[in-house]
């Protein structure tokens, strides 16, 4: 194990987050079992009080979860100097078999946590706890991947050894190796970038459509999710080589390094932020008929749709500016 202070910080954070989610899940299952809004019993009053505790606990836990994703990537990027053969975060994550599963789970939990917080925010706007069953059921689903993630993060850092020769990003993200990353790097750059631009354009069109009061937000959520995937694929296959001005360098993590002014953090923040806001719009869509939310839900969805558009817009602007201003051309 590499006893870096940042590793300790991440391990402590993962224990605290898991403990908070476990505590909240325990109370949530209690609420799901005994909740009866019509009742005025002592138990129901206590359950209603507990909802405040769970919401506060989870709001903090999931906020820390979002921050710890950024810290995990930053730490992996910092630790690469101590791992033989590693040149950026890719090498660190690749140093043992648990690095990538931990990262993938953290990203998944990040998206999931964002959606849960949106649901919680909407629920707090209704006076009669309208989404209580939906959000606590979702919480119980979310809890398991969070525990699993903590376990993987612990085992990953405990298994990290400085003297293991790991692959550098040059070999992992080179094409034709049969791995997921090499498949992504091997995607045809122009159609992949085209798919992303199409997704961004469709997001704009659906936003306008949504503003006119058409649709509930499902279409926007699906397009936002697909645009996110296309954005990640296009970053690896086309935008990253354009930033590096190296045709065979597809690494999505090198963008985070100081040579590229840490621009990756802004790019990924906009991409992830857009995905959460866009998909959040769809998560709220099934609850349109609830009377206590009839005023706030459309307002909240419009805000989320706008946020999604702004995030994707900023991402598109940054990558397009780079493509246009760079002397580098991936195709003649």
């Amino acid at each position, binding site marked *: 194990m*590499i*006893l*870096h*202070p*940042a*590793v*300790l*910080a*991440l391990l*402590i*954070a993962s224990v*605290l987050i898991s*403990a*908070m989610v476990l505590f909240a899940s325990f109370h949530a299952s209690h609420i799901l079992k005994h909740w009866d809004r019509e009742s005025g019993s002592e138990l129901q009053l206590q359950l209603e*009080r507990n909802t*405040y*505790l769970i919401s*506060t*606990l989870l709001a*903090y836990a999931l906020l*820390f979860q979002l*921050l*710890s994703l*950024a*810290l995990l990537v*930053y*730490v992996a990027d*910092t630790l690469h*100097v*101590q*791992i*033989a053969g590693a040149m950026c975060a890719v090498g660190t994550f690749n140093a043992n078999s648990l690095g990538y599963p931990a990262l993938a789970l953290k990203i998944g939990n990040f998206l999931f946590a964002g959606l849960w917080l949106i649901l919680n925010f909407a629920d*707090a706007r209704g006076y009669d706890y309208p989404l209580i069953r939906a959000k606590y059921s979702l919480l119980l689903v979310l809890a398991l991947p969070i525990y699993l993630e903590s376990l993987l993060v612990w085992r990953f850092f405990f298994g990290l050894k*400085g003297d293991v020769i790991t692959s550098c990003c040059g070999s992992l993200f080179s094409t034709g190796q049969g791995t997921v990353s090499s498949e992504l790097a091997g995607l045809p750059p122009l159609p992949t970038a085209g798919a992303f631009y199409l997704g961004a354009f469709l997001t704009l069109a659906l936003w306008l459509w949504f503003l006119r009061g058409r649709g509930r937000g499902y279409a926007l959520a699906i397009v936002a999710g697909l645009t996110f995937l296309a954005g990640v694929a296009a970053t690896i296959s086309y935008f990253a080589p354009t930033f590096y001005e190296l045709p065979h360098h597809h690494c999505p993590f090198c963008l985070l390094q100081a040579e590229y002014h840490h621009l990756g953090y802004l790019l990924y923040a906009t991409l992830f932020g857009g995905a959460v806001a866009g998909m959040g719009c769809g998560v709220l869509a099934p609850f349109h008929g609830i009377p206590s939310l009839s005023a706030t839900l459309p307002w909240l969805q419009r805000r989320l749709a706008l946020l999604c558009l702004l995030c994707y817009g900023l991402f598109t602007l940054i990558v397009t500016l780079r493509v246009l201003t760079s002397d580098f051309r991936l195709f003649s």
Partner: protein
Amino acid sequence: MNRSLERQRNILDFTLASLLRRKGKNLSLLAIYIFIVFIIASVTFFTTALKREALLLLSEAPEMVVQRLSAGRHDLISHDYAEGIAAIRGVTAVTPRLWGYYFDPTTGANYTLLVPPAGTAVPGVVTVGAGVARNLGLAADDLLPLRSYRGESLLYTVEAVLSSESELIATDLVLMAAGDFQQLFNMPPGFAVDLAVSVANPRELATVAGKIVERYPDTRPILKSEILRTYDAIFDWRGGMMIVLLMAAVFSFLVFAWDKAAGLSAEERREIGILKSIGWETGDVLLLKFWEGCAVSLSAFCLGVLFAFVHVFVFSAPIFAPALKGWAVIYPAFRLTPEVSPLQLAILFFLTVVPYTVATIVPSWRAATIDPDAAMRQ
């Protein structure tokens, strides 16, 4: 949006006024919180600054050093090896190096003796580092006595004392001619302590190292990148160990914070009761507690970081230096270069603010769900 902002502002306003009303209780918590942030921030700042110094120090080191091993121990290497290694394709230069350590029994200090390359040193004349000069009270033109391997006293004239800017690298250094070095340690001519190897393309270093071991199996090439990695790991390990030890203090602080947050005074209970009876909701009281936590954490975080900055970069970390720097009779006096990175601040946040916040959630919720009538009746 404006109304929502206005609401937050009003609650924040109320929070600050309420914190100031209970100065005694809050100041004791704040003082301990600041101390915890200060200690952990000092450790991270100090280890990062030392890593930076080590990096700067090694930037001038040769890319590869080749040592000869005999019975698993470092041994002298013949100049013939240098010629053989120089013939390997890609190697641009091989410099035999003469250096060693000299223990001075009168002061209990160790000096590093080095023969400068290209034979620039004059026999009988030495240049000493600032630490050696300080230790022996030497100045230019004084005599430096050293005992040879046979026990006889040899006198060298001090030509100059190296400037204090180079102290971190050269504080214990004595530069002397090759002949003097060989006479002092009974070292046969035609042998070196190790070889510094330069390679034209840094990417070929590993390949060249492989070829050297293949041609001379009794050698051990050491790459600069390996040394850098080891230094990085050592300083991180030292910082990490300190933090592991300090976690006991952090844990005590959390118990204290929990206790402070849970032990509401009768006055506070009445205050929350009145607030709720005039229309504040549980959510509003929780918001009040949130802002209270933010105000305390932000003040403690900023002040703790500021104090740690002054402690490490102005006073050279007197509290941690003995444990983290290592020690020696001749230790370089140096001022660390101030550097605070976002990573350090993020580490501090996760090690102090996050546990504090977690410790105060349940007590805050308990306070916020007090029944107004019960609170006022007490």
